[in-house]
C-alpha cells in the first residue's frame, strides 16, 4: 500500500469477538470487543472509534480498511440464509443431496448427512445439455425456464443458483437462463456455477453456487450498508474484503462472490504467520493457532501458506472430513481440529484419557469459570498445572476457581485412573498436544511435506501454553510467539496483497495439447483477473502466478504444478507440453518419490492468481546483546518429565525488552495468555518483540 499517510484499519468479526487493529506510522493499536450479532456494523464502528481515539486520529485520516468476517460462514452453519432455488440440468436434480454417496464415518450407524441448502422442492430441472467439450447436445428449452417464474414467485425465492452440467466448458445455457429470469424477476439475485466455481465436478461446483446464492442477499445488504455507514461517519477510504484465499478484494467482487469470504479469519491468521516467517527469514514454518474451541495448523513454505481449492464448511460431525458442504473456492489450506482451551476431557470406553472435540464454549465454559461447568476442559488442566494464574486471567478480568478445576479433573478422570488431579491434568494436557501433533503430522504427509526442521509460529489464546510440548512432539527446535497473538488474524489482513484467483477447467491430454485453446482460455482468465485486481491496486505492480492441475491418465486426484511465467507475451508456445510434463514429473517425484515414464498426463484445470506484491517485511534492527532476565516471583509449575511440581520463575512479557533471555523452566505472562517453557527450552526476545524459544543444546 502507499507509504504516505499510512493509517490502516483492519477488523475481523468472529463468532464471539470482533477484533480491530489500527496501524499508523509504525504504531499499532488493538482492540477486542464482543460481536454485535444483530447489527455487526455497529460493533465495527464502535471498535473503529475506540482505536482511532486511542491513536488521536479521526476517520478522515484512515487510508485503508480491510474487513474479514465469519458472517457468511455463520449463515451457512446456522442455515439462516435466504430462500434459494436451484435450476439444474434435467436428470440431475439431486446432485447436491446425493453428494459423493459415501459415509464419512465407517462405524457410526447413526450419522446425519449434511442437509442440502436447497431442498428438493426448490430444485428445478430444465431440459438442456452440454457435453464435456462444451458442445450442445440438447439446446436449452427456454419455455421451461419461463414456466419456472410463477413457481419461484410462489415459493418466495430470494436468490437463485443456476448449475448445469459441464457449464465450466460452455456456460451459454446458464447465461441464457439468467437473462430470461432477470427480465422476469429483476429483484432476484442470481449465481451462475460457471462464474463462482468454473470447475469440473458437478457436486462441488453446484454446491458452491448454492452456497453463494444462499448467503448473497444478506451479505450484499450487510456490505452495502457497512459502506454507507462508514461514509456517513466520515471514512473516505477504500473498503477491502479479506478472502479465504489469502488476498483482499473490492466490495464489488465480495458482493458478487460472498462465498469466497468464508474462511477469511483463519486466512488472516495464516498470512500473519507467513509475514512473520518472512521477517525472520524462515523458509519452512508450521503455523499453529489455538483458540477456545479449535486449533488450526497451516504449512508455510517460503512465506507462502499452502493453498487448495477444496474446502468444507459447516461440518456436522466433529470436524470430520465429508460431513460438511463442499466449496470449491481458493482457500489457504489448514487442518482444523477440536482442540482448544475449552475442549472437554473425559475417559473413553477403554478408560483412556480423551480430549475434545466437544467444547465447553463460553457458557458454561471450563469448570474453573465457575459458571456451572462440571467436566474438565484444557483450561482447567492448565490452571492446575500452574500455567495459568487464576487471579490474573484475561488481564484480571476473570477470576478462575482452581478448586473447581481440581474437582472436575478429580471426579471425571483422577478417581477412575487412581491418580491425583494434578496428574489427571498432565494427562489431559499431554493428550491434547498429542492430538494436535498427530493431526499436524497427518496433514504434512497428505501434502507430501516434512514437518521436522520447521519453525513453529504459535498464536491464539491457548497456543503459547502448549507450543513447547507440541514442538517437542514434532521434533521442532524453534518456536516464535508473536505479540498481539490474540488478534493475529486482523493483523494478517493488513499484510495481505490485493489479489484475485481465477480458476477454469479445460480437459486436455499433454500428448495432444491444443496450445491455442489453452491460450484462449488463459487470455480470458487474465482479463477477468485484471479487471478485479486493478480496481483495487491503484497502479501498484502486479504479479501473476499460473498453476496447471494435472494427473496421470486414470488417476483420481490432480497435482498442482506452478508454471514459470516466462512465457513470451503471456502466451504458451509449442514447448509448453514438454515443459508441463517436466514440471509435473518433478512435482510428482517430490510428492510420491517416483514418476511413471510413458504414461500420458492429462490437464484438468488452470488457476491464475494475480496480485499486488506482498508487503516488504521490516528490516530487523541490530540485535541487542543478550541479557539474563531476573524474576522476582516463583510459582509451582508441573514438570512434564518427572510428574512433580517444581518452583519455576515467572516473568512479565511487558517487562522483557529485546535481547532479554529466559531459561526454562519458566513462565512468561502476558494479558491474554502465558508462554510455558520446560527445562529443555530457552527464550530470547527478538527486536520485533517476538519471543523466540529455542531448544537448548544437549549438555
Amino acid at each position, binding site marked *: 500500500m502507499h507509504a504516505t499517510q499510512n493509517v490502516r484499519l483492519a477488523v475481523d468479526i468472529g463468532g464471539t469477538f470482533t477484533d480491530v487493529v489500527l496501524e499508523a506510522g509504525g504504531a499499532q493499536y488493538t482492540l477486542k470487543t464482543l460481536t454485535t450479532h444483530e447489527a455487526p456494523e455497529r460493533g465495527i464502528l464502535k471498535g473503529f472509534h475506540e482505536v482511532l481515539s486511542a491513536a488521536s486520529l479521526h476517520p478522515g485520516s484512515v487510508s485503508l480498511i480491510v474487513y474479514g468476517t465469519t458472517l457468511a460462514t455463520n449463515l451457512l452453519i446456522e442455515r439462516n440464509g435466504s430462500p434459494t432455488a436451484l435450476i439444474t440440468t434435467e436428470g440431475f436434480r439431486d446432485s447436491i443431496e446425493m453428494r459423493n*454417496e*459415501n*459415509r464419512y464415518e465407517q*462405524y457410526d*450407524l447413526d450419522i446425519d448427512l449434511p442437509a442440502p441448502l436447497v431442498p428438493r422442492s426448490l430444485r428445478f430441472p430444465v431440459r438442456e445439455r452440454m457435453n464435456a467439450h462444451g458442445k450442445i447436445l440438447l439446446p436449452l428449452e427456454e419455455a421451461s425456464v419461463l414456466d419456472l417464474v410463477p413457481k419461484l414467485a410462489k415459493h418466495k425465492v430470494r436468490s437463485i443458483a443456476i448449475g448445469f452440467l459441464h457449464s465450466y466448458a460452455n456456460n451459454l445455457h446458464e447465461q441464457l437462463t439468467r437473462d430470461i429470469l432477470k427480465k422476469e424477476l429483476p429483484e432476484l439475485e442470481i449465481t451462475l456455477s460457471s462464474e463462482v466455481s468454473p470447475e469440473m465436478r458437478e457436486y462441488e461446483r453446484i454446491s458452491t453456487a448454492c452456497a453463494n446464492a444462499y448467503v448473497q442477499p444478506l451479505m450484499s445488504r450487510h456490505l452495502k450498508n457497512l459502506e454507507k455507514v462508514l461514509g456517513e461517519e466520515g471514512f473516505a477510504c477504500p473498503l477491502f474484503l479479506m478472502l479465504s484465499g489469502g488476498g483482499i478484494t473490492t466490495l464489488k467482487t465480495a458482493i458478487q462472490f460472498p462465498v469466497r469470504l468464508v474462511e477469511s479469519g483463519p486466512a488472516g491468521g495464516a498470512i500473519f504467520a507467513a509475514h512473520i516467517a518472512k521477517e525472520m527469514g524462515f523458509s519452512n514454518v508450521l503455523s499453529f493457532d489455538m483458540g477456545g474451541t479449535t486449533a488450526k495448523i497451516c504449512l508455510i513454505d517460503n512465506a507462502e501458506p499452502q493453498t487448495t481449492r477444496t474446502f468444507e464448511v459447516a461440518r456436522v460431525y466433529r470436524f470430520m472430513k465429508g460431513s460438511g458442504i463442499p466449496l470449491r473456492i481458493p482457500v489457504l489450506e489448514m487442518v482444523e481440529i477440536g482442540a482448544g482451551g475449552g475442549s472437554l476431557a473425559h475417559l473413553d*470406553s477403554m478408560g483412556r484419557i480423551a480430549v475434545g472435540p466437544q467444547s465447553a464454549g463460553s457458557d458454561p465454559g471450563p469448570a474453573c469459570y465457575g459458571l456451572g461447568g462440571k467436566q474438565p476442559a484444557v483450561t482447567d488442566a492448565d490452571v492446575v498445572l500452574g500455567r495459568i494464574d487464576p487471579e490474573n486471567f484475561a488481564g484480571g478480568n476473570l477470576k478462575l476457581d482452581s478448586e473447581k478445576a481440581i474437582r472436575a479433573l478429580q471426579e471425571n478422570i483422577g478417581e477412575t485412573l487412581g491418580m491425583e488431579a494434578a496428574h489427571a491434568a498432565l494427562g489431559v494436557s499431554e493428550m491434547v498436544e498429542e492430538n494436535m501433533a498427530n493431526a499436524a503430522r497427518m496433514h504434512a504427509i497428505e501434502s507430501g511435506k516434512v514437518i521436522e526442521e520447521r519453525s513453529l509460529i504459535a498464536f491464539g489464546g491457548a497456543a503459547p501454553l502448549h507450543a513447547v510440548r507440541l514442538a517437542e512432539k514434532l521434533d521442532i527446535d524453534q518456536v516464535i510467539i508473536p505479540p498481539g497473538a490474540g488478534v493475529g488474524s486482523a493483523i494478517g489482513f493488513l499484510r495481505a496483497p490485493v489479489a484475485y484467483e481465477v480458476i477454469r477447467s479445460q*480437459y486436455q491430454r499433454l500428448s495432444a495439447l491444443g496450445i491455442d485453446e489453452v491460450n484462449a482460455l488463459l487470455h480470458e482468465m487474465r482479463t477477468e483477473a485484471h479487471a478485479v485486481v486493478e480496481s483495487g491496486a491503484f497502479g501498484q505492480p502486479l504479479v501473476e502466478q499460473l498453476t496447471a492441475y494435472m494427473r496421470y491418465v*486414470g488417476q483420481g486426484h490432480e497435482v498442482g504444478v506452478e508454471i514459470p511465467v516466462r512465457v513470451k507475451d503471456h502466451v504458451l508456445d509449442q514447448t509448453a507440453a514438454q515443459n508441463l510434463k517436466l514440471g509435473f514429473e518433478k512435482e510428482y517425484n517430490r510428492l510420491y518419490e517416483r514418476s511413471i515414464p510413458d504414461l500420458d498426463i492429462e490437464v484438468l484445470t488452470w488457476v491464475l492468481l494475480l496480485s499486488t506484491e506482498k508487503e516488504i517485511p521490516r528490516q530487523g534492527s541490530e540485535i541487542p546483546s543478550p541479557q539474563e532476565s531476573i524474576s522476582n516471583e516463583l510459582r509451582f509449575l508441573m514438570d512434564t518429565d518427572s*510428574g512433580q511440581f517444581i518452583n519455576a520463575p515467572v516473568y512479565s512479557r511487558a517487562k522483557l525488552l529485546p535481547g532479554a533471555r529466559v531459561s526454562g523452566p519458566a513462565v512468561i505472562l502476558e494479558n491474554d495468555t502465558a508462554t510455558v517453557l520446560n527445562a529443555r527450552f530457552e527464550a530470547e526476545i527478538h527486536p520485533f518483540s517476538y519471543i523466540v524459544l529455542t531448544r537448548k543444546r544437549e549438555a
Partner: protein
Amino acid sequence: MRPLSALSTIHQHIMWKRLISVVEEQAQALIRTAFSTSVREAGDLAAAVFDCQGRMLAQAVTGTPGHINSMAEGVLHFIKKHPVETMNPGDAFITNDPWMTSGHLHDITVLTPTFLRGRVIALFANTCHVVDIGGRGFGPDARQVYEEGLNIPILHLFHAGEPNKTLLDIIQSNVREPRQVLGDIFSFAASNEVGSKRLLKMMEEFKLQSLEELGEFIITHSRDATIKRIHLLKNGTYHNTLMMDGYDRPIKLQAAMTVSDDQIHIDYSGTSPAAAHGINVVLNYTKAYTCFGVKCVVAPDIPNNYGSLLPISFSAPEGCILNAQHPHPVAARHIIGHLLPDTILGCLHQVLEGGVQAEGSASLWTIQLRGGSSISSNSSYKGSIPEFEMLQFNSGGSGARPKKDGMSTTAFPSGVKGMPVEVNEAITPIIFWRKEFRSGSGGAGCQRGGLGQDIEIGGAEGIPFDVLAMYERCDNAPKGRNNGKDGATGRLSLASGPALRPKGQQSIPPFDRLRLELPGGAGFGDPFDRDPEKVAEDVRNEIISQENAQIDYGVNLNKDGSVNQIETRRTRSS
C-alpha cells in the same frame, strides 16, 4: 498413585494414541500413491502394526471394512513360514494368496519387520488392491481361481534390502499394467518403512525396548471394553436368514448368533454351498465383514486390534459360500461380503433394545462399461467405436434406522465414494442422461428407508457398449423391521424397454441406453406412526406420491400440500 507410575499410565494412553496415528500415516502414504480406483476412492486397503507373535496392536481406519482382521490372519501365515528370528534387516515379504490374506488375488499384502538393536520388535503390514493381476481381469466370470490371475505364494519381496528380481520379472510379464502394479508394490514396502520409522521414533521418545508391555495394555483394555459391551446384551441364540439373488441361482445366508457372557459367536451353518462363479468368499473375508457387522452395532468406538476382536468368533462349514475352498473362483467376493452385515444386524435386532437399522441395498452397484472392438454388438454401428473401460461406484438406499430415516444413495457397509459424472464423461465416450433419486424406492416406515437412484447411460454419438453387470437385490428386496415396509428391488433394462439380466456381460445396442434402477433401503416401524408433517414434506419433495402418502402412510393432504389433520386421523384409526 506416585508421580512416576501416574506418568507411566499417561504415557501408555499417549503411546496407544500415537500407534494409531502411526498406522494412519502408513495408510495415508499408500492412498496418496495408489493407482487403483478402489484404493483411492474407496480406501480399499489396510495398514497395521503387529507384535512379534503376530497380534495386531493397531489398524488404520480405512474406507472399507473388508480388511478388518483379514490381514491379521495373513500375518500368522507369514511368520509361520518365516519365523521372526530368521528375518533380517531390509527384508520384506509378499503374498496375494486369497486363502491366506483377504480373499482375492487383486489384494497384495506386504509385511516388513521393524528392528531395534538387531532384534525384531514389531511387524508392519499392509494390504492393497492393485489395478490388475492378470487372468480374466476383475469380474465374477471365472470358474476356478486359476483363471483369475497370478497367485504369489509367501516370498521375499526384499532380501536384506535387495529386491527379489525373479519375482518382479514374473509379475511384470503376467499383469496388464506392469508399471503401475510394480510401482504400487514398491510403495507398499515404502509405506511400511514410514510406519517403522515413526514407531522407532516413538520408542526412543518413551525409552522403550520392546512393545510387549504396551501391547498387553492395548489388548487387555480393548478386550475388556468389548466384553463390557457384550455384557449389556441378553444371552441367547438369535437366528436370521438373508436371501440374495446370487449369480444364476438364489443364495441363502444363514446365521445363528450366540451371545454368551463374554463372547459373541456366529455360526453360518445352513448357508448355501459355494457357487460356480467368482462370488465365493474365503474364511478371512467372512471374518472381516462378520466382525464389522458386530462391531458397528456393539462396540463401534473401540479400535480394531487383536484384543477387541477376541470376543467375536464365528464358524462357517467347509465348502459353503462363506468358506469356499481352493480352487473356487473368488474375485468378486465383495458382492456377498457386503450382505453379511445386514445378515448379522438381523440377529442383533432381536437382542438390542430399540432394534437396529433395517436392511438396505448393501452391495455396491458398480457400473463397469466396456467399449471398442471386443464388444459383441458393434456390427450394426457405422463408424468407429473407441476402446474404453469405465468404472463407477454407485449406491442405492440404506435401511431406515430406529430413530432416523435411511440414507439415500449412500453406501453401507462399504464406505466407497462415487465419481463425478462430469469427470467420467470427460474421459470416456459415454453420456449420463440421468442420475437422480428414485422416487418411491425407500421402504415406508415410521422411519423411511433411504432412496435408491435412477441412472441412464448412452454412448456418445450413439455408440454401442457392453455392461459387465454385477447387481444384487433385484429379486430379493431389502426387508423392513418392526412393520416397516421393504425397500424397492433393483432393475436393469434398456431404455427401449427390454429387461437385462442383473449379472453378466451384456450389450447396449447403438443409440439405445442402459437404465439402472437401484434398490431403496427398507423402512423401520409402522408407516402409520410416521410424523404426518414428514410425510407431507416427502410429498412436497416428490420423494413419495400423494397416493403413497395416503395408502402407505395414512396421511391425507390438502390441496396446498398441508396435512389434513382430521382426515389423517380418521384414515390412521380405521
